[in-house]
């Protein structure tokens, strides 16, 4: 297992209410959908400290939802935040994914929206296909039926999105693409100052 560093001032978004897919599996547990809908899963025991960093549930791998398979969910932030960027940890399934998140200034939508391109390699890619970096790495895969497969090494990838100018974000709308699995999202606050944000 290895992790790349999330900036120290980053604030993790609570994905708990939106998780809808179980992509991690503990030993001896009946497989659920897994990453790809066929039960292929990331071994929960291989995640180590990354599970805490991601704020994943304590009973990870026992069938509980642990990631957001994107179906257009709306992540409403507690209050609008001035951002300099986003970090997204997750993976694609059925190929690599390149999608757009919609960032709106108010929690109820409306106002000028900004778009953030999130690109993540496939959970089974052996190297990053985009500018993403490896966040976590397992030495084996739980294949269909929960069968350990040493020929595959699933990974979680981290995509760092940085905005050319700070922007205000009150809510984030995910795309409709269930092959984009979001496991963690961090907001990177911009320093408050005179260069107040205008979303564009």
């Amino acid at each position, binding site marked *: 297992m290895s992790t790349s560093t999330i900036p120290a001032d980053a604030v993790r978004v609570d994905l708990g209410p939106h998780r809808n897919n179980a992509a991690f599996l503990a030993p001896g547990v009946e497989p659920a959908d897994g990453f790809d*809908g066929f039960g292929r899963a990331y071994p929960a025991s291989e995640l180590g400290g990354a599970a805490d960093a991601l704020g994943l549930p304590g009973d990870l791998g026992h069938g509980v939802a642990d990631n957001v398979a994107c*179906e257009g969910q709306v992540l409403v932030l507690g209050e609008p935040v001035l951002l300099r960027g986003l970090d997204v940890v997750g993976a694609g399934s*059925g*190929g690599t994914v*390149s999608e757009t998140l919609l960032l709106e200034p108010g929690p109820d939508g409306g106002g000028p929206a900004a778009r953030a391109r999130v690109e993540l390699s*496939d959970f089974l*890619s052996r190297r990053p296909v985009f500018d993403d970096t490896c966040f976590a790495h397992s030495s084996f895969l739980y294949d269909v039926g929960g069968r350990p497969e*040493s020929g595959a090494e699933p990974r979680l990838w981290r995509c760092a999105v940085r905005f050319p100018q700070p922007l205000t974000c009150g809510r984030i709308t995910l795309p409709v693409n*269930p092959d984009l699995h979001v496991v963690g999202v961090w907001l990177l606050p911009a320093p408050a100052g005179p260069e107040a944000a205008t979303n564009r």
Partner: protein
Amino acid sequence: MTQAPLFTDSSCYHAAFAALLHAAEPHTDPFLVLGNNAATAARLADDGLLRFSDPLEPLTSTFARHGYELRQHPVTTREDWQGALDALRRGTAVAIAADAFHLEHYWVGYRTSHALHVVVLRDYDETSGTVRLLDPGEVVFFDERVAVDQLTPAMCEGRAGQAWIQLVAHPDRGPARPDSISLMSLSQALSGTGSAWMSGTSLVEALHSDLDRYLEAVSSRPRAADGTQQDWGLGPWLLLGLWWYHHTLRWLAGHLGTLAADGTLPGRADLIEAVDRASRDLLVVRNLMMRLGVMSADDKRSATFRGQLRPRLEQALENLSTAGTALATLAEEKR
């Protein structure tokens, strides 16, 4: 065991042929050759529905444009397979299109699917009866020696369309650079009207207009290892054809990026972006159709996923059209 591959790709055809090209000419950028292709490999059959050809057909044409022959040798008997071993004995690296069901290293399809999978063989060792098997696939990367006997069932059992393929460089070939004709050819393949295969925009329009019939074909397709790739009907071929076409577009975007980077073509970020986005949207359409094919009718996500198909197709149509127009403009400028 973690391995550090130099090159991998999620298309086994592109990955294997790039490796074959690298074995013959290490300094040739595979994107310059394999990416110079925008063929859908699709036609409309008499029933008005799409049919896809094997990607070997357009890739053979692509290699020919660059002065290489991708020489294909069908394998239906052990004698046919012997031809590949003879080539390996002579020191020639070859690609094989093998029945995945019998490929032990290929955990994705081993004992579950009779789809063809393409890998590279080289360095035959007569003494040990082994050969180096390179599978540069992104999720299965494998580079080890295997017993030749272990490959015999994958090549000789059943009628899955197995073949071995060698790359032959014509001695008088020179570097192929994009000219007006080749750029116009790519433009036509993306958004034109007539060529060996239907254009990308025609393919997307066909999908859009008969979406319900295609969804039905995908949902009623047989599962698992039923039949070989040669026996598959519309549903499995549609998923396979869209998978290949998205790779074709992905490699075309890489090809255009390489040409822009070396100054051969003017940098057209909008063109490359349009090709890449079309590739991405068509992959999403293909994957959503596959998901819809196994979802129960009362699954509340069905409507969400179905509702995503037409906008994605329309976006792909727009991007293919944009890219076709941009390439036609570049072709005019080269004239």
